[in-house]
């Protein structure tokens, strides 16, 4: 894979970002779970108080996908807060289309590092996703769930509404 460019996403990239989100969800067997729309991505990422930031990987015309897409990878991140350390970068999603893997991932990683003063990076990986687990572990990542016993819990909207109704 010869040339590619990593750059911050703009509002006009939202349809490509959604396309890649759906492709990644498909790879994780969770395609039907994607509820987000292009309108949500636009409002939430390019409004007054963005909820997320996005880097995209773009290739020149000679390497466009068969469907004519120039955008072949993305990384979506936002900032969280660890009360023990301070502001952290949280990598929500990171995906490069299969035909373009090999170098673009490192380009995105490098961009993230150079553009932000990072002291740590957190993300989730599904326990059955062995290739990803090995990729991250080989590069020094720790599995906090296995090593320290952390479990992620969620409370869905219907229970939030129940709680609010009880107040």
């Amino acid at each position: 894979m010869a040339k590619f460019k990593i750059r911050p996403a703009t509002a006009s990239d939202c349809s490509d970002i959604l396309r890649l989100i759906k492709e990644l969800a498909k790879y994780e067997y969770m395609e039907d779970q994607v509820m987000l729309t292009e309108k949500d991505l636009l409002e939430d990422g390019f409004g007054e108080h963005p909820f997320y930031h996005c880097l995209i990987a773009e290739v020149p015309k000679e390497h466009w996908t068969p469907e004519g897409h120039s955008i072949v990878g993305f990384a979506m991140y936002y900032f969280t807060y660890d009360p023990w350390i301070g502001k952290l970068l949280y990598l929500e999603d990171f995906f490069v289309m299969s035909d373009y893997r090999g170098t673009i991932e490192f380009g995105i990683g490098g961009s993230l590092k150079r553009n932000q003063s990072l002291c740590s990076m957190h993300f989730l990986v599904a326990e059955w996703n062995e290739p990803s687990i090995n990729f991250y572990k080989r590069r020094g990542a720790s599995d906090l769930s296995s090593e320290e016993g952390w479990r992620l819990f969620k409370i869905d909207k219907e229970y939030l509404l129940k709680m609010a109704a009880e107040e």
Partner: protein
Amino acid sequence: MASTRIREAKERDCGDILRMIRELAEFEKLSHQVKISEEALRADGFGENPSFHCLVAEVIPTPGELQGPRVVGFGLYYFIYSTWKGRNIYLEDIYVMPQYRGQGIGTKIIKKVAEVALHKGCSQFRLAVLDWNKKAMDLYKSLGAQDLTELEGWHSFRFEEAAMRQLAE
């Protein structure tokens, strides 16, 4: 009978918040990991673009009681984003001092965060808990929480600074 109220933290609460952050880390057997200072909390939480939001649980004294209101618990949260569902809220830390537990203060804090979540258009509320903290897991489950690590196999990973520098080179 003293009553408790949950209110938004103010900058002057940072001393109490840091004290409780340390108490919670000690409870989690991870106190060696606390590096933050009161100044950093003030700057990060109460500046123009706060990196976190915080609620505190305050015990209001009964009339005649000599001691003033005291902060006995906190909930520190921020907004996150799911590529599947959009806006979410993440409760990073929740803590009630041991002598004030069993009165429903933790539940009150969670309910207040749930209200904030709905007000801001969030579709989900997330939090992490240690697998040996059965009391906390039971409380969250009683409020409708599900264990995603158990149900869907999600593991939390982290790159520390040194590993990240290598990754970027």
